[in-house]
Protein backbone atom coordinates (compact mmCIF):
# COMPACT_ATOMS: atom_id res chain seq x y z
CA UNK A 1 0.00 0.00 0.00
CA UNK A 2 2.96 2.29 0.53
CA UNK A 3 4.22 1.79 -3.01
CA UNK A 4 5.24 4.80 -5.05
CA UNK A 5 2.72 3.87 -7.72
CA UNK A 6 -0.02 3.95 -5.16
CA UNK A 7 1.13 7.29 -3.79
CA UNK A 8 1.41 8.72 -7.30
CA UNK A 9 -2.11 7.51 -8.10
CA UNK A 10 -3.29 8.97 -4.79
CA UNK A 11 -1.78 12.33 -5.66
CA UNK A 12 -3.51 12.37 -9.04
CA UNK A 13 -6.71 11.26 -7.35
CA UNK A 14 -6.30 14.13 -4.91
CA UNK A 15 -5.81 16.63 -7.72
CA UNK A 16 -8.78 15.22 -9.63
CA UNK A 17 -10.80 15.47 -6.41
CA UNK A 18 -9.81 19.11 -5.87
CA UNK A 19 -10.64 19.87 -9.50
CA UNK A 20 -14.01 18.14 -9.06
CA UNK A 21 -14.64 20.16 -5.90
CA UNK A 22 -13.94 23.44 -7.69
CA UNK A 23 -16.20 22.33 -10.56
CA UNK A 24 -18.97 21.26 -8.18
CA UNK A 25 -18.70 24.57 -6.36
CA UNK A 26 -19.13 26.45 -9.66
CA UNK A 27 -22.01 24.26 -10.83
CA UNK A 28 -23.78 24.68 -7.50
CA UNK A 29 -23.59 28.44 -7.86
CA UNK A 30 -24.78 28.31 -11.47
CA UNK A 31 -27.80 26.34 -10.31
CA UNK A 32 -28.51 28.71 -7.39
CA UNK A 33 -28.19 31.68 -9.72
CA UNK A 34 -30.37 30.02 -12.36
CA UNK A 35 -33.05 29.36 -9.75
CA UNK A 36 -32.94 32.95 -8.59
CA UNK A 37 -33.51 34.10 -12.19
CA UNK A 38 -36.26 31.52 -12.62
CA UNK A 39 -37.91 32.75 -9.47
CA UNK A 40 -37.91 36.31 -10.78
CA UNK A 41 -39.47 35.13 -14.05
CA UNK A 42 -42.07 32.90 -12.41
CA UNK A 43 -42.96 34.92 -9.33
CA UNK A 44 -42.87 38.45 -10.57
CA UNK A 45 -42.35 38.89 -14.28
CA UNK A 46 -45.46 36.97 -15.19
CA UNK A 47 -47.47 38.87 -12.55
CA UNK A 48 -46.17 42.10 -14.05
CA UNK A 49 -47.36 40.96 -17.50
CA UNK A 50 -50.71 39.93 -16.01
CA UNK A 51 -51.11 43.35 -14.36
CA UNK A 52 -50.24 45.05 -17.68
CA UNK A 53 -52.78 42.90 -19.53
CA UNK A 54 -55.41 43.53 -16.87
CA UNK A 55 -54.79 47.26 -17.28
CA UNK A 56 -55.10 46.99 -21.04
CA UNK A 57 -58.31 44.93 -20.77
CA UNK A 58 -59.70 47.60 -18.44
CA UNK A 59 -58.71 50.32 -20.91
CA UNK A 60 -60.52 48.41 -23.68
CA UNK A 61 -63.60 47.96 -21.49
CA UNK A 62 -63.49 51.67 -20.73
CA UNK A 63 -63.28 52.49 -24.41
CA UNK A 64 -66.26 50.08 -24.95
CA UNK A 65 -68.17 52.27 -22.47
CA UNK A 66 -67.16 55.34 -24.48
CA UNK A 67 -68.32 53.61 -27.71
CA UNK A 68 -71.67 53.05 -25.99
CA UNK A 69 -71.86 56.74 -25.10
CA UNK A 70 -71.14 57.51 -28.73
CA UNK A 71 -73.96 55.26 -29.76
CA UNK A 72 -71.87 52.45 -31.23
CA UNK A 73 -73.49 49.72 -29.20
CA UNK A 74 -72.81 47.06 -31.78
CA UNK A 75 -69.08 47.54 -31.19
CA UNK A 76 -69.30 48.32 -27.47
CA UNK A 77 -70.94 45.13 -26.22
CA UNK A 78 -68.64 42.50 -27.83
CA UNK A 79 -65.56 44.58 -26.95
CA UNK A 80 -66.67 44.73 -23.34
CA UNK A 81 -67.47 41.01 -23.22
CA UNK A 82 -64.18 40.07 -24.88
CA UNK A 83 -62.05 42.23 -22.54
CA UNK A 84 -64.00 41.21 -19.48
CA UNK A 85 -63.05 37.61 -20.28
CA UNK A 86 -59.50 38.68 -20.92
CA UNK A 87 -59.36 40.54 -17.61
CA UNK A 88 -60.72 37.55 -15.74
CA UNK A 89 -58.15 35.25 -17.37
CA UNK A 90 -55.32 37.56 -16.40
CA UNK A 91 -56.79 38.08 -12.96
CA UNK A 92 -57.05 34.31 -12.42
CA UNK A 93 -53.38 34.05 -13.30
CA UNK A 94 -52.36 36.89 -10.95
CA UNK A 95 -54.52 35.47 -8.17
CA UNK A 96 -52.86 32.10 -8.64
CA UNK A 97 -49.37 33.59 -8.46
CA UNK A 98 -49.34 35.45 -5.17
CA UNK A 99 -45.71 35.67 -4.08
CA UNK A 100 -45.25 39.02 -2.37
CA UNK A 101 -46.32 40.42 0.90
CA UNK A 102 -49.31 42.80 0.35
CA UNK A 103 -50.24 41.01 -2.86
CA UNK A 104 -53.27 39.14 -1.41
CA UNK A 105 -54.84 42.44 -0.23
CA UNK A 106 -54.40 44.00 -3.66
CA UNK A 107 -55.80 40.88 -5.39
CA UNK A 108 -58.79 40.84 -3.02
CA UNK A 109 -59.39 44.56 -3.68
CA UNK A 110 -59.14 44.01 -7.47
CA UNK A 111 -61.62 41.11 -7.24
CA UNK A 112 -64.07 43.13 -5.17
CA UNK A 113 -63.77 46.28 -7.24
CA UNK A 114 -63.90 44.46 -10.58
CA UNK A 115 -67.15 42.74 -9.56
CA UNK A 116 -68.60 46.14 -8.63
CA UNK A 117 -67.24 47.68 -11.88
CA UNK A 118 -68.69 44.79 -13.90
CA UNK A 119 -72.08 45.24 -12.24
CA UNK A 120 -72.06 48.97 -13.01
CA UNK A 121 -70.84 48.32 -16.58
CA UNK A 122 -73.57 45.75 -17.19
CA UNK A 123 -76.17 48.14 -15.84
CA UNK A 124 -74.69 50.99 -17.95
CA UNK A 125 -74.74 48.99 -21.18
CA UNK A 126 -78.25 47.51 -20.60
CA UNK A 127 -79.74 50.84 -19.50
CA UNK A 128 -78.26 52.44 -22.58
CA UNK A 129 -81.41 51.85 -24.62
CA UNK A 130 -83.65 53.47 -21.95
CA UNK A 131 -81.69 56.39 -20.44
CA UNK A 132 -81.10 59.71 -22.08
CA UNK A 133 -77.63 60.48 -23.37
CA UNK A 134 -77.21 63.11 -20.64
CA UNK A 135 -78.14 60.62 -17.93
CA UNK A 136 -75.84 58.12 -19.39
CA UNK A 137 -72.95 60.61 -19.54
CA UNK A 138 -73.61 61.51 -15.94
CA UNK A 139 -73.65 57.79 -14.98
CA UNK A 140 -70.42 57.22 -16.82
CA UNK A 141 -68.56 60.12 -15.24
CA UNK A 142 -69.98 59.72 -11.75
CA UNK A 143 -70.08 55.92 -11.40
CA UNK A 144 -68.19 54.08 -14.06
CA UNK A 145 -65.09 56.23 -14.69
CA UNK A 146 -64.09 56.53 -10.99
CA UNK A 147 -64.34 52.75 -10.58
CA UNK A 148 -62.31 52.27 -13.77
CA UNK A 149 -59.59 54.61 -12.53
CA UNK A 150 -59.55 53.04 -9.04
CA UNK A 151 -59.30 49.56 -10.54
CA UNK A 152 -56.53 50.71 -12.86
CA UNK A 153 -54.69 52.08 -9.80
CA UNK A 154 -55.05 48.69 -8.10
CA UNK A 155 -53.57 47.02 -11.15
CA UNK A 156 -50.78 49.59 -11.13
CA UNK A 157 -50.17 48.79 -7.47
CA UNK A 158 -49.92 45.10 -8.35
CA UNK A 159 -47.56 45.96 -11.18
CA UNK A 160 -45.49 48.18 -8.98
CA UNK A 161 -45.33 45.63 -6.16
CA UNK A 162 -44.05 42.94 -8.52
CA UNK A 163 -41.67 45.32 -10.22
CA UNK A 164 -40.18 46.26 -6.86
CA UNK A 165 -39.90 42.59 -5.96
CA UNK A 166 -38.19 41.99 -9.28
CA UNK A 167 -35.67 44.72 -8.58
CA UNK A 168 -34.99 43.31 -5.13
CA UNK A 169 -34.63 39.78 -6.50
CA UNK A 170 -32.35 41.10 -9.18
CA UNK A 171 -30.16 42.80 -6.57
CA UNK A 172 -30.09 39.56 -4.64
CA UNK A 173 -29.12 37.62 -7.76
CA UNK A 174 -26.29 40.09 -8.50
CA UNK A 175 -25.03 39.72 -4.94
CA UNK A 176 -25.32 35.95 -5.28
CA UNK A 177 -23.39 36.03 -8.54
CA UNK A 178 -20.71 38.21 -6.93
CA UNK A 179 -20.45 35.84 -3.99
CA UNK A 180 -20.32 32.85 -6.33
CA UNK A 181 -17.55 34.49 -8.37
CA UNK A 182 -15.43 35.33 -5.35
CA UNK A 183 -15.99 32.06 -3.55
CA UNK A 184 -15.20 30.09 -6.71
CA UNK A 185 -12.03 32.14 -7.19
CA UNK A 186 -11.13 31.57 -3.51
CA UNK A 187 -11.80 27.84 -3.73
CA UNK A 188 -9.80 27.64 -6.97
CA UNK A 189 -6.88 29.55 -5.37
CA UNK A 190 -7.02 27.35 -2.27
CA UNK A 191 -7.13 24.22 -4.43
CA UNK A 192 -4.20 25.49 -6.50
CA UNK A 193 -2.15 26.30 -3.38
CA UNK A 194 -2.99 22.96 -1.78
CA UNK A 195 -2.28 21.15 -5.03
CA UNK A 196 1.05 22.92 -5.43
CA UNK A 197 2.00 22.23 -1.81
CA UNK A 198 1.06 18.61 -2.21
CA UNK A 199 2.93 18.30 -5.49
CA UNK A 200 5.97 20.01 -3.95
CA UNK A 201 5.89 17.75 -0.90
CA UNK A 202 5.45 14.67 -3.02
CA UNK A 203 8.17 15.59 -5.49
CA UNK A 204 10.51 16.41 -2.59
CA UNK A 205 9.64 13.08 -1.01
CA UNK A 206 10.71 11.39 -4.24
CA UNK A 207 13.61 13.65 -5.12
CA UNK A 208 15.29 13.90 -1.69
CA UNK A 209 16.07 10.18 -1.28
CA UNK A 210 17.05 9.99 -4.96
CA UNK A 211 19.43 12.91 -4.45
CA UNK A 212 20.89 11.29 -1.33
CA UNK A 213 21.24 8.08 -3.32
CA UNK A 214 23.02 9.87 -6.15
CA UNK A 215 25.46 11.46 -3.67
CA UNK A 216 26.12 8.11 -2.03
CA UNK A 217 26.54 6.49 -5.44
CA UNK A 218 29.09 9.17 -6.30
CA UNK A 219 31.03 8.49 -3.10
CA UNK A 220 30.89 4.75 -3.76
CA UNK A 221 32.09 5.46 -7.29
CA UNK A 222 35.04 7.28 -5.78
CA UNK A 223 35.91 4.10 -3.93
CA UNK A 224 34.30 4.62 -0.52
CA UNK A 225 32.42 1.33 -0.35
CA UNK A 226 31.57 1.78 3.32
CA UNK A 227 28.74 4.12 2.29
CA UNK A 228 25.20 3.02 3.01
CA UNK A 229 21.96 4.67 2.01
CA UNK A 230 19.46 5.11 4.79
CA UNK A 231 16.35 3.13 3.86
CA UNK A 232 13.48 5.30 5.05
CA UNK A 233 10.49 3.99 3.10
CA UNK A 234 9.11 0.71 1.90
CA UNK A 235 8.12 1.98 -1.54
CA UNK A 236 10.00 1.49 -4.81
CA UNK A 237 12.63 4.04 -3.70
CA UNK A 238 13.11 2.13 -0.45
CA UNK A 239 13.49 -1.09 -2.45
CA UNK A 240 15.97 0.67 -4.74
CA UNK A 241 17.94 1.95 -1.72
CA UNK A 242 18.01 -1.52 -0.18
CA UNK A 243 19.16 -3.04 -3.48
CA UNK A 244 21.75 -0.29 -3.78
CA UNK A 245 23.07 -1.10 -0.30
CA UNK A 246 23.20 -4.78 -1.21
CA UNK A 247 25.16 -3.90 -4.35
CA UNK A 248 27.64 -1.78 -2.34
CA UNK A 249 27.92 -4.66 0.11
CA UNK A 250 28.68 -7.12 -2.68
CA UNK A 251 31.24 -4.69 -4.14
CA UNK A 252 32.82 -4.38 -0.70
CA UNK A 253 33.03 -8.15 -0.35
CA UNK A 254 34.42 -8.40 -3.86
CA UNK A 255 37.08 -5.81 -3.07
CA UNK A 256 37.91 -7.57 0.18
CA UNK A 257 38.27 -10.83 -1.73
CA UNK A 258 40.49 -9.12 -4.28
CA UNK A 259 42.68 -7.61 -1.58
CA UNK A 260 42.84 -10.94 0.21
CA UNK A 261 43.73 -12.64 -3.07
CA UNK A 262 46.42 -10.04 -3.74
CA UNK A 263 47.94 -10.48 -0.29
CA UNK A 264 47.77 -14.27 -0.70
CA UNK A 265 49.71 -14.07 -3.96
CA UNK A 266 52.16 -11.53 -2.51
CA UNK A 267 52.64 -13.77 0.52
CA UNK A 268 53.40 -16.75 -1.68
CA UNK A 269 55.74 -14.85 -3.96
CA UNK A 270 57.67 -13.29 -1.05
CA UNK A 271 57.71 -16.25 1.27
CA UNK A 272 58.66 -18.95 -1.21
CA UNK A 273 62.16 -17.54 -1.88
CA UNK A 274 62.55 -16.69 1.82
CA UNK A 275 61.68 -20.31 2.64
CA UNK A 276 64.20 -21.57 0.14
CA UNK A 277 66.92 -19.21 1.42
CA UNK A 278 66.21 -19.89 5.06
CA UNK A 279 66.20 -23.65 4.52
CA UNK A 280 69.47 -23.54 2.56
CA UNK A 281 71.23 -21.37 5.16
CA UNK A 282 69.97 -23.42 8.08
CA UNK A 283 70.95 -26.66 6.36
CA UNK A 284 74.42 -25.25 5.66
CA UNK A 285 74.67 -24.04 9.25
CA UNK A 286 73.75 -27.42 10.70
CA UNK A 287 76.26 -29.17 8.43
CA UNK A 288 73.74 -31.04 6.32
CA UNK A 289 75.87 -30.29 3.26
CA UNK A 290 79.16 -31.16 4.94
CA UNK A 291 81.35 -29.53 7.60
CA UNK A 292 82.08 -25.79 7.30
CA UNK A 293 85.34 -23.96 7.96
CA UNK A 294 85.19 -21.24 10.61
CA UNK A 295 85.22 -18.52 7.93
CA UNK A 296 82.38 -20.25 6.10
CA UNK A 297 80.55 -20.65 9.41
CA UNK A 298 80.92 -16.90 10.06
CA UNK A 299 79.48 -16.04 6.63
CA UNK A 300 76.58 -18.45 7.04
CA UNK A 301 75.75 -17.05 10.51
CA UNK A 302 75.59 -13.53 9.06
CA UNK A 303 73.41 -14.72 6.23
CA UNK A 304 71.21 -16.57 8.72
CA UNK A 305 70.66 -13.44 10.85
CA UNK A 306 69.77 -11.32 7.85
CA UNK A 307 67.55 -14.05 6.49
CA UNK A 308 65.66 -14.17 9.79
CA UNK A 309 65.35 -10.40 9.60
CA UNK A 310 64.05 -10.63 6.04
CA UNK A 311 61.57 -13.20 7.21
CA UNK A 312 60.36 -10.92 10.03
CA UNK A 313 60.10 -7.99 7.63
CA UNK A 314 58.05 -10.05 5.17
CA UNK A 315 55.84 -11.16 8.04
CA UNK A 316 55.35 -7.56 9.24
CA UNK A 317 54.66 -6.25 5.73
CA UNK A 318 52.05 -8.89 5.03
CA UNK A 319 50.49 -8.47 8.47
CA UNK A 320 50.28 -4.72 7.94
CA UNK A 321 48.76 -5.21 4.48
CA UNK A 322 46.13 -7.53 5.90
CA UNK A 323 45.41 -5.11 8.74
CA UNK A 324 45.13 -2.18 6.34
CA UNK A 325 42.95 -4.19 3.96
CA UNK A 326 40.73 -5.10 6.89
CA UNK A 327 40.97 -8.82 6.19
CA UNK A 328 42.57 -9.75 9.50
CA UNK A 329 40.23 -11.88 11.58
CA UNK A 330 40.14 -10.73 15.20
CA UNK A 331 39.01 -13.09 17.91
CA UNK A 332 37.94 -10.57 20.52
CA UNK A 333 37.01 -11.80 23.96
CA UNK A 334 36.86 -10.19 27.40
CA UNK A 335 40.42 -10.14 28.76
CA UNK A 336 41.85 -8.92 32.07
CA UNK A 337 44.33 -6.06 31.38
CA UNK A 338 46.76 -7.49 33.98
CA UNK A 339 46.88 -10.83 32.10
CA UNK A 340 47.68 -9.13 28.81
CA UNK A 341 50.54 -7.11 30.34
CA UNK A 342 51.87 -10.17 32.14
CA UNK A 343 51.91 -12.21 28.95
CA UNK A 344 53.73 -9.46 27.07
CA UNK A 345 56.37 -9.22 29.81
CA UNK A 346 56.97 -12.97 29.69
CA UNK A 347 58.07 -12.52 26.10
CA UNK A 348 60.28 -9.43 26.49
CA UNK A 349 61.02 -9.03 30.19
CA UNK A 350 64.25 -11.01 29.92
CA UNK A 351 65.69 -8.65 27.28
CA UNK A 352 65.11 -5.66 29.53
CA UNK A 353 66.62 -7.32 32.57
CA UNK A 354 69.61 -8.43 30.51
CA UNK A 355 70.20 -4.78 29.69
CA UNK A 356 70.04 -3.88 33.37
CA UNK A 357 66.76 -1.98 33.11
CA UNK A 358 64.15 -2.28 35.83
CA UNK A 359 60.57 -2.97 34.85
CA UNK A 360 57.71 -1.58 36.93
CA UNK A 361 54.13 -2.68 36.34
CA UNK A 362 51.19 -0.79 37.71
CA UNK A 363 48.17 -2.64 36.35
CA UNK A 364 45.62 -3.31 39.12
CA UNK A 365 44.11 -6.79 38.97
CA UNK A 366 40.65 -5.36 39.55
CA UNK A 367 40.63 -3.33 36.33
CA UNK A 368 37.51 -4.14 34.29
CA UNK A 369 37.91 -6.59 31.40
CA UNK A 370 38.63 -5.19 27.95
CA UNK A 371 37.38 -6.60 24.66
CA UNK A 372 40.56 -7.78 22.96
CA UNK A 373 42.20 -10.35 20.72
CA UNK A 374 44.80 -11.32 23.31
CA UNK A 375 47.40 -12.43 20.75
CA UNK A 376 47.20 -9.13 18.86
CA UNK A 377 47.20 -6.89 21.95
CA UNK A 378 50.13 -8.80 23.44
CA UNK A 379 51.87 -8.13 20.13
CA UNK A 380 51.19 -4.39 20.54
CA UNK A 381 52.48 -4.39 24.14
CA UNK A 382 55.51 -6.49 23.19
CA UNK A 383 56.32 -4.11 20.40
CA UNK A 384 56.04 -1.06 22.67
CA UNK A 385 58.18 -2.63 25.42
CA UNK A 386 60.77 -3.78 22.86
CA UNK A 387 60.96 -0.25 21.49
CA UNK A 388 61.33 1.13 25.02
CA UNK A 389 64.12 -1.33 25.82
CA UNK A 390 65.89 -0.55 22.56
CA UNK A 391 65.88 3.19 23.19
CA UNK A 392 66.69 3.14 26.89
CA UNK A 393 70.18 2.58 28.33
CA UNK A 394 69.61 3.44 31.98
CA UNK A 395 66.48 3.62 34.09
CA UNK A 396 63.02 2.17 34.23
CA UNK A 397 60.31 0.95 31.90
CA UNK A 398 56.87 1.38 33.43
CA UNK A 399 53.77 -0.47 32.25
CA UNK A 400 50.55 0.88 33.65
CA UNK A 401 46.84 0.43 33.20
CA UNK A 402 44.09 2.78 34.27
CA UNK A 403 40.30 2.53 33.96
CA UNK A 404 38.39 5.41 32.41
CA UNK A 405 34.76 5.74 31.37
CA UNK A 406 34.09 2.88 28.90
CA UNK A 407 37.79 2.11 28.37
CA UNK A 408 41.15 1.16 29.84
CA UNK A 409 44.26 3.21 29.06
CA UNK A 410 47.50 1.23 28.78
CA UNK A 411 50.79 3.11 28.99
CA UNK A 412 54.40 2.07 28.34
CA UNK A 413 56.83 4.72 29.64
CA UNK A 414 60.61 4.71 29.41
CA UNK A 415 63.45 6.91 30.55
CA UNK A 416 65.23 6.64 27.23
CA UNK A 417 66.46 8.94 24.49
CA UNK A 418 63.02 10.24 23.56
CA UNK A 419 61.68 11.17 20.14
CA UNK A 420 62.42 14.50 18.44
CA UNK A 421 59.33 16.72 18.29
CA UNK A 422 59.22 16.74 14.47
CA UNK A 423 58.85 12.95 14.41
CA UNK A 424 56.08 12.67 17.02
CA UNK A 425 53.29 13.16 14.50
CA UNK A 426 54.69 10.64 12.00
CA UNK A 427 55.99 7.92 14.27
CA UNK A 428 52.94 5.67 13.61
CA UNK A 429 53.34 5.82 9.84
CA UNK A 430 54.95 2.86 8.11
CA UNK A 431 58.71 2.89 7.47
CA UNK A 432 59.13 6.05 9.59
CA UNK A 433 62.23 5.75 11.73
CA UNK A 434 63.90 8.37 13.88
CA UNK A 435 67.35 9.07 12.40
CA UNK A 436 70.18 7.95 14.63
CA UNK A 437 67.92 5.64 16.62
CA UNK A 438 69.32 2.17 17.05
CA UNK A 439 66.73 0.08 15.29
CA UNK A 440 66.47 -3.51 14.22
CA UNK A 441 63.20 -3.20 12.42
CA UNK A 442 62.03 -1.55 9.25
CA UNK A 443 59.71 0.91 10.99
CA UNK A 444 56.58 -1.18 10.69
CA UNK A 445 56.03 -2.10 14.36
CA UNK A 446 54.19 1.06 15.39
CA UNK A 447 52.14 1.15 12.18
CA UNK A 448 51.01 -2.41 12.94
CA UNK A 449 50.32 -1.45 16.57
CA UNK A 450 48.15 1.45 15.44
CA UNK A 451 46.21 -0.74 13.02
CA UNK A 452 45.57 -3.35 15.71
CA UNK A 453 44.50 -0.79 18.33
CA UNK A 454 42.23 1.05 15.90
CA UNK A 455 40.68 -2.20 14.70
CA UNK A 456 39.78 -2.78 18.38
CA UNK A 457 38.04 0.60 18.49
CA UNK A 458 40.83 2.22 20.50
CA UNK A 459 43.33 5.02 19.95
CA UNK A 460 47.11 5.16 20.27
CA UNK A 461 49.38 8.13 20.91
CA UNK A 462 52.77 9.18 22.21
CA UNK A 463 54.28 11.88 24.40
CA UNK A 464 58.01 12.36 24.43
CA UNK A 465 60.76 14.69 25.51
CA UNK A 466 64.23 14.47 24.04
CA UNK A 467 66.66 12.75 26.48
CA UNK A 468 63.95 12.30 29.12
CA UNK A 469 61.95 9.46 27.66
CA UNK A 470 58.73 8.58 25.88
CA UNK A 471 55.30 7.41 26.96
CA UNK A 472 53.12 5.45 24.54
CA UNK A 473 49.45 5.20 25.46
CA UNK A 474 46.67 3.21 23.87
CA UNK A 475 43.09 2.54 24.84
CA UNK A 476 40.84 -0.50 24.59
CA UNK A 477 37.06 -0.53 25.03
CA UNK A 478 35.60 -2.29 28.06
CA UNK A 479 34.08 -5.72 27.44
CA UNK A 480 30.91 -4.60 29.21
CA UNK A 481 29.89 -1.72 31.43
CA UNK A 482 29.88 -3.99 34.49
CA UNK A 483 31.28 -7.09 32.85
CA UNK A 484 32.81 -9.79 35.02
CA UNK A 485 36.46 -10.62 34.56
CA UNK A 486 37.13 -13.74 32.53
CA UNK A 487 38.24 -16.77 34.46
CA UNK A 488 41.97 -17.21 34.88
CA UNK A 489 43.71 -19.51 32.38
Amino acid at each position, binding site marked *: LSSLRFRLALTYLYLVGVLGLVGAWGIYHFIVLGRAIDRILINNYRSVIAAENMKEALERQDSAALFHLAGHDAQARPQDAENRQRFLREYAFAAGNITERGEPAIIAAIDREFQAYSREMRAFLQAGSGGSPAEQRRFYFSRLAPRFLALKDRCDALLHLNQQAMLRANDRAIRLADRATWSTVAVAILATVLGLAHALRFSTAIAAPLKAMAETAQRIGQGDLEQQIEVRSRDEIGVLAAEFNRMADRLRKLREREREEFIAIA*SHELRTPVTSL*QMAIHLLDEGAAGPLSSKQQELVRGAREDCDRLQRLTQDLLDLSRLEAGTTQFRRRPEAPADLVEEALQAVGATARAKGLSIVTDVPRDLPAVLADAEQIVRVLTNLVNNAVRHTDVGTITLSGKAEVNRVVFAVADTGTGIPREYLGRIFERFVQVPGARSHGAGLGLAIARQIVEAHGGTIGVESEKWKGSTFRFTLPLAEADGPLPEEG
Partner: protein
Amino acid sequence: MMSTTKILIVDDEPHVRRNMQLALETAEYTVVTAGDGEEGESRFREGPRPDLVIVDERMPGIDGLALIRRIRSLDPRVPILLATAYGATGLISDALREGASGFLAKPFTPETLRDIVRQVLAAHSGAGTPPGGSG
Protein backbone atom coordinates in the same frame (compact mmCIF):
# COMPACT_ATOMS: atom_id res chain seq x y z
CA MET B 1 70.66 -46.39 6.20
CA MET B 2 67.43 -44.64 5.16
CA SER B 3 64.29 -45.48 7.09
CA THR B 4 61.38 -47.10 5.33
CA THR B 5 59.20 -44.05 6.01
CA LYS B 6 58.46 -42.59 2.59
CA ILE B 7 57.52 -38.94 2.13
CA LEU B 8 56.23 -37.44 -1.12
CA ILE B 9 56.90 -33.73 -1.62
CA VAL B 10 54.94 -31.90 -4.33
CA ASP B 11 56.12 -28.32 -4.93
CA ASP B 12 56.64 -26.40 -8.16
CA GLU B 13 59.60 -24.42 -6.74
CA PRO B 14 62.78 -26.52 -7.42
CA HIS B 15 64.85 -24.86 -4.67
CA VAL B 16 62.24 -25.28 -1.99
CA ARG B 17 61.67 -28.86 -3.17
CA ARG B 18 65.38 -29.70 -3.04
CA ASN B 19 65.90 -28.04 0.36
CA MET B 20 62.92 -29.83 1.89
CA GLN B 21 64.21 -33.09 0.45
CA LEU B 22 67.65 -32.45 1.96
CA ALA B 23 66.18 -31.45 5.34
CA LEU B 24 64.09 -34.62 5.52
CA GLU B 25 66.78 -36.93 4.12
CA THR B 26 69.19 -35.77 6.85
CA ALA B 27 66.48 -37.00 9.26
CA GLU B 28 66.64 -40.41 7.59
CA TYR B 29 63.37 -40.27 5.65
CA THR B 30 63.01 -41.62 2.12
CA VAL B 31 61.90 -38.68 0.00
CA VAL B 32 60.22 -38.67 -3.41
CA THR B 33 59.55 -35.32 -5.11
CA ALA B 34 57.26 -34.05 -7.84
CA GLY B 35 57.25 -30.66 -9.60
CA ASP B 36 53.48 -30.34 -10.18
CA GLY B 37 50.14 -31.87 -9.30
CA GLU B 38 50.03 -34.19 -12.31
CA GLU B 39 53.44 -35.65 -11.50
CA GLY B 40 52.56 -35.74 -7.80
CA GLU B 41 49.57 -37.95 -8.49
CA SER B 42 51.55 -40.42 -10.63
CA ARG B 43 54.38 -40.51 -8.05
CA PHE B 44 51.74 -41.32 -5.43
CA ARG B 45 50.38 -44.20 -7.53
CA GLU B 46 53.75 -45.82 -8.35
CA GLY B 47 55.75 -48.05 -6.01
CA PRO B 48 55.03 -48.37 -2.32
CA ARG B 49 52.51 -45.87 -0.97
CA PRO B 50 54.08 -42.80 0.74
CA ASP B 51 53.52 -42.52 4.50
CA LEU B 52 53.11 -38.76 4.24
CA VAL B 53 52.45 -36.27 1.44
CA ILE B 54 53.48 -32.60 1.60
CA VAL B 55 51.66 -30.50 -0.98
CA ASP B 56 52.31 -26.87 -1.88
CA GLU B 57 49.11 -24.85 -1.98
CA ARG B 58 49.82 -22.57 -4.94
CA MET B 59 50.94 -24.47 -8.05
CA PRO B 60 50.19 -24.00 -11.72
CA GLY B 61 47.76 -26.56 -13.16
CA ILE B 62 46.43 -28.81 -10.44
CA ASP B 63 46.78 -26.75 -7.25
CA GLY B 64 47.27 -28.00 -3.71
CA LEU B 65 43.58 -28.37 -2.82
CA ALA B 66 42.80 -30.24 -6.06
CA LEU B 67 45.74 -32.58 -5.53
CA ILE B 68 44.62 -33.29 -1.94
CA ARG B 69 41.18 -34.21 -3.34
CA ARG B 70 42.74 -36.59 -5.90
CA ILE B 71 45.03 -38.25 -3.37
CA ARG B 72 42.14 -38.58 -0.92
CA SER B 73 40.13 -40.42 -3.57
CA LEU B 74 43.02 -42.88 -3.93
CA ASP B 75 43.80 -43.21 -0.22
CA PRO B 76 41.48 -41.99 2.51
CA ARG B 77 44.03 -42.45 5.29
CA VAL B 78 47.45 -41.13 4.21
CA PRO B 79 48.32 -37.92 6.13
CA ILE B 80 48.65 -34.87 3.87
CA LEU B 81 50.27 -31.57 4.90
CA LEU B 82 49.44 -28.41 2.99
CA ALA B 83 52.35 -25.95 2.72
CA THR B 84 50.98 -22.43 2.45
CA ALA B 85 52.31 -18.90 2.63
CA TYR B 86 48.95 -17.48 3.63
CA GLY B 87 46.76 -19.03 6.27
CA ALA B 88 43.44 -17.37 5.48
CA THR B 89 40.54 -18.88 7.40
CA GLY B 90 38.71 -19.68 4.17
CA LEU B 91 41.67 -21.65 2.84
CA ILE B 92 42.14 -23.53 6.11
CA SER B 93 38.52 -24.66 6.25
CA ASP B 94 38.57 -25.57 2.52
CA ALA B 95 41.74 -27.61 2.99
CA LEU B 96 40.34 -29.43 6.02
CA ARG B 97 37.18 -30.25 4.06
CA GLU B 98 39.26 -31.69 1.19
CA GLY B 99 41.04 -33.90 3.71
CA ALA B 100 44.26 -32.08 4.69
CA SER B 101 45.73 -33.41 7.93
CA GLY B 102 47.68 -30.29 8.82
CA PHE B 103 49.44 -27.16 7.65
CA LEU B 104 52.99 -26.05 7.09
CA ALA B 105 53.24 -22.26 7.29
CA LYS B 106 55.81 -20.74 4.96
CA PRO B 107 58.48 -19.72 5.64
CA PHE B 108 59.75 -22.58 7.77
CA THR B 109 63.15 -23.80 8.89
CA PRO B 110 64.44 -27.35 8.52
CA GLU B 111 63.84 -27.85 12.27
CA THR B 112 60.22 -26.79 12.05
CA LEU B 113 59.68 -29.04 9.02
CA ARG B 114 61.15 -32.06 10.75
CA ASP B 115 59.18 -31.35 13.97
CA ILE B 116 55.87 -31.13 12.16
CA VAL B 117 56.57 -34.21 10.01
CA ARG B 118 57.49 -36.16 13.13
CA GLN B 119 54.34 -35.07 14.94
CA VAL B 120 52.02 -35.89 12.06
CA LEU B 121 53.59 -39.31 11.50
CA ALA B 122 53.44 -40.10 15.23
CA ALA B 123 49.81 -39.07 15.47
CA HIS B 124 48.97 -41.10 12.40
CA SER B 125 50.78 -44.29 13.32
CA GLY B 126 48.94 -44.41 16.67
CA ALA B 127 46.34 -47.19 16.28
CA GLY B 128 42.99 -45.76 15.41
CA THR B 129 43.96 -42.19 16.28
CA PRO B 130 42.84 -39.67 13.71
CA PRO B 131 45.50 -37.68 11.85
CA GLY B 132 46.55 -34.70 13.92
CA GLY B 133 47.30 -31.37 12.33
CA SER B 134 49.76 -28.71 13.18
CA GLY B 135 51.34 -25.64 11.67
